[in-house]
């Protein structure tokens, strides 16, 4: 797995896809969907947080802390799914 991870840029240049083509397609498509969901979720979170701080600047510190915690939790789910993508792609 490690050689594949370090040689991935070189492999993209050669584009030789053997039996593992379907797994690679599935993994890369899954990775794209994961990023879509995560970016939408965290973007909505950040937008609500900024709007809330604009309404009430005194609560800025607490809102910021809550935003960071929620972003880290969403990121945890994202990376969990990404690990499954990596398991599929390099198995």
């Amino acid at each position: 797995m490690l050689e594949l991870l370090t040689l991935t840029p070189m492999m993209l240049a050669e584009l030789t896809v053997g039996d593992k083509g379907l797994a690679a397609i599935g993994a890369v498509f899954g990775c794209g969907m994961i990023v879509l969901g995560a970016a939408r979720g965290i973007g909505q979170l950040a937008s609500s947080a900024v709007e809330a701080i604009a309404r009430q600047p005194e609560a800025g510190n607490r809102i910021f802390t809550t935003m960071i915690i929620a972003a880290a939790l969403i990121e945890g789910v994202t990376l969990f799914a990404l690990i499954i993508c990596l398991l599929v792609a390099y198995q």
Partner: protein
Amino acid sequence: MNKCMTLLASMKVLEEITSKKWEIPIGPYHLTFTNHMLMISVASIMLMVILPLAFRRPVLVRRGFGSVIETICVFLREDVARPFLKDRTDRYIGILWTLFFFILTMNLLGLMPIDKLVFLLIGKEHFGGAPTANVWVTGALATFSFFLFHIAGIREKGLWHYIKTFTPPVPWPMYPFMFLIELISSFVRLFSLAIRLFANILAGHILLAVILGFIMMFKNFMVATASLTVTVLFSLLEVFVAFLQAYIFVFLTTIFIGFAIAEEH
């Protein structure tokens, strides 16, 4: 200087996240010692040496390194633990402080190029690594946290009452179903704590490795400049992620302890 550059270029970029073993034969058995175990030992010995030295004298206003540690400790006690653990903060705060500083030290040790420095000085490879980039290490920490909040609940309430809190007030035919869901949810908490910490640190290291791998792929001076700049910037992000993930781990553990020792509504 040339020798340094060629020596460093011969190391693989993903050295930090792989786990490399030495087999120490003791009698008929083999004792396996990996480089991640070595880094855990280094982190714990660092903490056991540095923290008591910073807090040797009891003064009211600290200066220097002790002031940083004290700020972090006060923040963890007042803003993280006290809102959830209200009365029993002082019972659990020691272990939460330990967990935070241990995870933080392990994360930050993973960002330092210790194996490459050791390779330059001594010539032996496979010494450093990020312990938290190993799912077994974070799994062990999450198991520790799992036992911590269950045993906290059992100590505060007694075994039978604690198991009774697993069943919220619903009509009695649904009791086995709700009990199963609550039991599964506590295992899911274990896995999510382990995987969150592991995946964040691992993803950071893989990202740095891929960006550094571009240098070997293109073999160009401009690419090397851009790649090293981006590596430095992402390493700053990784420092932030190190602090954040340690804080999130301790915060979630505090919340789970708070749920376990909560009074009946």
